[in-house]
């Protein structure tokens, strides 16, 4: 990630790198208190200076102070003027600790506290101060990030310093980043040789530098830079295509997850389950509830939510089946009416019992952010997990439907209920199990969606239409169809979006579905044969 | 019973049995040609280079083992299934392969399905009404009136099929055999030039079978009839020419006696006992 930094900040940062090696020293309590007090009353410019002083103090508590300041957790007790660190800032009473001693001071009403104001600019400065230290830490990953951040911001003194660091650097990736950063600087100085270093780089700063050079006065350098840019452009095009494909697959896998449960309840059983979305919603709320039960362990909670979400939704599904759907045998269309009613009830139930507001579901660390394939292509982790999850759920379902008796029995029951019963198939049990399964899978989808979108009473509504669309587009009753339909609709949508915009892309996809159904009136994978023709 | 007797009086011409004027050109004698027709499903050849000619006014019986392709052949003639290769002509003017089901039906080809198919939510009477030959375009259908004439014709068919008492019943409640009769009745209402009758007597008693036999033989001459049946007694009672289908092509053709003496037919179809 590239950030523009001011020259002043950088020179100061370098200064700090030297000072911080003296860490362990302590400033006097008085001195520290004075600085912190000063911070509370100061103007932006003054704060900026105090922050540097704090950082430069070499006090081992400085990092703590800076981080608290940056996180808006440095506060002043209005009455006494004492500076405290807020250790918990939820609700109306906040837990605080003395900033100097670290001693806990219990809870205090928000009214009594005045926050030490911070803003993005100051936060940026603090982050820089902290992160430049990172250039010398042991972890190469941290060094790499720091080095990348320097691209496009190098000046003469820093260049010298970097050259020094480069000599000691043994990690090739960090070396490369440092070299690029230096090359950008040299190119700016008119050094034509730097073009060669930057030729293959996907870094946007490198590209900006090359573009500058291509517009420059030296025809030779300009020509070389233009060539380098062209080859980078080519690489970028490929990367963008890969990115679009990834976006498409990830959108597609969300569609698949949302639809796959419906592919069972609707596609196989023939129940037009308008409450499918609400079953997903239950899965998502289960995740939220799990995280409430296990505060501070969002990851564990999420993993436990997978079975829990399945069970909750499955139980709800079974209740719906027993109380409503079983009375509608042979009247598949009426299930639309009844489950529509159920969906209204479930939505309002959540509004009444929990809240009409969205709930916040935390993304565990291992699912946040993205993994970088190269500087032009990173894959967001939450989506990557969702793609994997969708495939696993799909495979599991396929296994159940293909390899267990349930798969056979449910198809027999839906195709000819009376005959299936005459063959000894316990139709009622099959109904319960199947509907429970489809509902449970909806719950799983909800668990996954909680990592992508709102967890609120409207969650179901936003997916129900798409889900039906996917199932039908794929061909009712065909799980492979659902998979392929979801993935392809997702991909088409994402391919269209860059040039058509989100709204038009969606419209085009819908029109595409309408036209496609003209060509294949029974979806991607139609039920073939005499029986299907009716 | 009485209608049955009336029917056997050959000199009496029932107007409802007369075919509708159809533009079909039968000057060359034949009303239906199938030439080199083949069709396969997922690689399975259900019809294999089938050649068949039905003459105008002929009553033809088609027999053959289960899965020989008899029903599929009818599907091809009526436009339900498109063959992979070959040609199918109705008279010498109409290439059936270029037409869809309603057009083919409008030309005068009527069909009774192997599994009786009637409109279950409509009454027996209404089933017959819809089947009746008439202008079947949308607006004429909307403005069509129920005349005494039509009512009489439907009544006649009801009588003939023994469904008088059930005229107001929904077709959905009919027993299997009653549905068979209803479908035959619908075929009669339609007054086609060519009737394709798939297993008309399945599920009928011997006596009903006889009645059906009389009915079909009575139609022949004015209309062309193709009957598929597995009941040899029935076939024998109506058959003039019999075609034996096997694995999608004609295995033998001739009179009932010739065919039933054919050792191949005995082997694949009739069995030693027959």
């Amino acid at each position, binding site marked *: 990630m590239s950030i523009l930094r001011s020259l002043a900040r950088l020179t100061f940062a370098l200064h700090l790198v030297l000072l911080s090696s003296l860490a362990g020293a302590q400033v006097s309590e008085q001195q520290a208190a004075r600085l912190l007090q000063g911070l509370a009353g100061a103007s932006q410019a003054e704060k900026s200076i105090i922050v540097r002083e704090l950082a430069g103090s070499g006090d081992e508590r400085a990092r703590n102070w800076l981080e608290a300041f940056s996180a808006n957790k440095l506060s002043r007790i209005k009455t006494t003027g004492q500076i405290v660190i807020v250790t918990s800032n939820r609700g109306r009473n906040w837990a605080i600790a003395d900033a100097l001693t670290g001693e806990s001071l219990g809870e205090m009403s928000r009214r009594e506290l005045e926050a030490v104001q911070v803003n993005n600019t100051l936060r940026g400065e603090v982050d820089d101060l902290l992160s430049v230290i990172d250039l010398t830490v042991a972890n190469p990953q941290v060094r790499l990030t720091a080095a990348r951040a320097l691209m496009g911001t190098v000046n003469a003194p820093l260049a010298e310093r970097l050259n020094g660091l480069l000599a000691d650097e043994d990690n090739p990736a960090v070396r490369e980043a440092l070299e690029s950063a230096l090359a950008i600087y040299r190119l700016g100085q008119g050094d034509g040789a730097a073009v060669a270093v930057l030729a293959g780089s996907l870094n946007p700063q490198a590209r900006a530098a090359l573009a500058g050079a291509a517009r420059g006065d030296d025809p030779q350098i300009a020509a070389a830079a233009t060539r380098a840019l062209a080859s980078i452009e080519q690489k970028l095009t490929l990367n963008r295509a890969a990115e679009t494909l990834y976006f498409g697959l990830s959108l597609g896998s969300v569609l698949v997850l949302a639809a796959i449960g419906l592919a069972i309840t609707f596609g196989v059983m023939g129940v037009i389950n308008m409450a499918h979305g609400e079953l997903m919603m239950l899965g998502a709320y289960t995740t939220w509830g799990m995280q409430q039960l296990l505060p501070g362990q969002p990851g564990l909670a999420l993993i436990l939510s997978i079975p829990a979400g399945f069970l909750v939704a499955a139980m709800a599904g079974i209740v719906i089946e027993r109380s409503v759907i079983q009375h509608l045998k042979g009247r598949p269309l009426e299930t639309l009416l009844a489950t529509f009613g159920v969906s209204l009830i479930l939505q309002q139930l959540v509004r009444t019992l929990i809240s009409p507001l969205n709930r916040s579901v935390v993304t565990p660390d291992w699912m946040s952010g993205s993994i970088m394939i190269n500087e032009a292509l990173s894959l967001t982790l939450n989506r990557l997990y969702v793609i994997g999850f969708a495939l696993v759920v799909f495979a599991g379902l396929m296994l159940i439907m293909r390899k267990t008796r349930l798969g056979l029995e449910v198809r027999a029951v839906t195709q000819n209920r009376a005959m299936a019963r005459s063959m000894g198939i316990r139709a009622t049990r099959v109904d319960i199990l199947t509907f429970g399964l489809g509902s449970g899978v909806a719950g799983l989808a909800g668990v996954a969606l909680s990592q992508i979108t709102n967890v609120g009473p409207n969650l179901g509504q936003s997916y129900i239409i798409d889900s039906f669309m996917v199932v039908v587009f794929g061909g009712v009753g065909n799980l492979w169809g659902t998979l392929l339909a979801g993935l392809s609709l997702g991909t088409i949508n994402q391919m269209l979006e860059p040039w058509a915009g*989100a709204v038009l892309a969606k419209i085009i996809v819908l029109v595409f579905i309408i036209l496609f159904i003209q060509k294949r009136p029974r979806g991607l994978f139609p039920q073939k044969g005499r029986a299907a023709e009716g | 019973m009485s209608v049955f007797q009336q029917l056997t009086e050959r000199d009496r011409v029932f107007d409802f049995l007369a075919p509708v004027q159809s533009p079909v050109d039968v000057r060359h004698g034949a009303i239906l040609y199938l030439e080199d027709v083949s069709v396969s499903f997922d690689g399975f050849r259900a019809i294999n280079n089938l050649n068949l000619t039905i003459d105008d006014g002929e009553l033809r019986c088609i027999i053959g083992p289960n899965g020989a392709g008899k029903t599929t052949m009818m599907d091809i003639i009526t436009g339900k299934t498109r063959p992979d290769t070959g040609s199918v002509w109705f008279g010498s003017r109409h290439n059936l392969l270029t037409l869809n089901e309603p057009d083919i039906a409008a030309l005068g080809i009527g069909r009774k399905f192997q599994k009786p198919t009637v409109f279950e939510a409509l009454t027996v009477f209404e089933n017959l009404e819809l089947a009746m030959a008439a202008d079947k375009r949308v607006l004429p259908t909307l403005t069509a009136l129920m005349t005494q004439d039509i009512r009489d014709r439907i009544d006649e068919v009801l009588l003939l099929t023994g469904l008088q008492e059930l005229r107001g019943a929904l077709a959905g409640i009919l027993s299997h055999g009653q549905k068979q009769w209803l479908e035959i009745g619908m075929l009669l209402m339609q007054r086609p030039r060519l009737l394709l009758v798939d297993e008309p007597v399945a599920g009928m008693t011997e006596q009903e079978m006889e009645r059906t036999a009389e009915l079909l033989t009575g139609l022949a001459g004015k209309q062309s009839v193709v009957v598929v049946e597995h009941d040899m007694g029935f076939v024998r009672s109506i058959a003039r020419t019999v075609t034996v289908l096997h694995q999608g092509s004609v295995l033998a053709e001739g009179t009932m006696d010739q065919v039933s003496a054919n050792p191949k037919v005995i082997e694949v179809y009739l069995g030693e006992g027959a």
Partner: protein
Amino acid sequence: AEDPIKVGILHSLSGTMAISESALKDTMLMLIEQQNAAGGVLGRQLEAVVVDPASDWPLFAEKARELLAKEKVDVIFGNWTSVSRKSVLPVVEELNGLLFYPVQYEGEESSENVFYTGAAPNQQAIPAVDYLKNDLGVERWVLAGTDYVYPRTTNKILETYLKDQGVADADIMINYTPFGHSNWQAIVAEIKKFGSAGKKTAVVSTINGDANVPFYRELGNQGLAASDIPVVAFSVGEQELAGIDTAPLVGHLAAWNYFMSVDNDANYDFIDAWVKFKGDDKAVTNDPMEAHYIGFNMYIEAVKKAGTTEVDAVKDAIIGVTVPNLTGGFAAMMPNHHITKPVLIGEIQDNGQFSVVWETSSTVAGDAWSDFLPGSRDLISDWRAPLKCGNFNVVTGKCGGGTAEVASK
């Protein structure tokens, strides 16, 4: 005792907007309860009449009619989306009702019967852009919005404003998405690309409602931190943040006229009352709630001043009424039926609250007709006699149609 004063509450309690509007219903109930505890007004108690227009726009009109014609309420507090207000507008005008509308909106409207206690674009959007430009040095702009009238108009105004300030076409990117849009991958990637051209870039977001959660999630996951490309939102408040994991969002901005975190006793009292009323320690307050607080108090003051709840009298009395707001200042009802508000810019903190990083030195009066739209540049609104016009054209010297006709009725 006299008949109670009937207060109609027209907020969606079900459907997509319940998420935002149901808290406003509760706010009103709380305010009414407080007022009654304080003895009501003019010796009369207040009675709330709650209906649910269910996020269904035509139903808003029907319910407004029900409130005015059937329930005979004296005043209505309600609506969130502009379309619902547009739907209700002809009804309140026809039946001569009073409507207090508490949400920030696109402007371009001034009805004799409506009081706009939310922000007009000049009370939110323009100051926010000024802040980004002057304090953060932003040079490149992404205007991202949900595809409906409020974002469209706001962005139109901002576009004109930015261009007037010399921002080039190429430095403005405009993007619209449908309601409830949840797949932000491509758009965020696009923004990232747009922001990597070497100039400081910011996103001005008029993205509404449910689309925000996945949007911010995607920002976080694609690593767009506030320090790189800050997002300033006009429709994301404390209530929306309550449904988002805010950890990755620290530093992104919002512009409002009120934040829950404002350090002020009136605000703390309001919050305490709200928490008690809801029985939920974690209940949050937000800007539209403050707008209702202001609107309600203005109404009470106006009724006191007029000595009656009679609509025309209240209408006349309320102009000029000044009540304290929750941020330590005062709100005055202007002749154009908009109010004066301070503009605050806050940064999101990890606890779902905003910390104020900038505010206007004084309050700003709401402008019904934007100076940055060609059609409305020349219009002003003044509901005092003798002008009594919501859209007076200062060039032609004439009062525009529609509302004038009603006024003369």
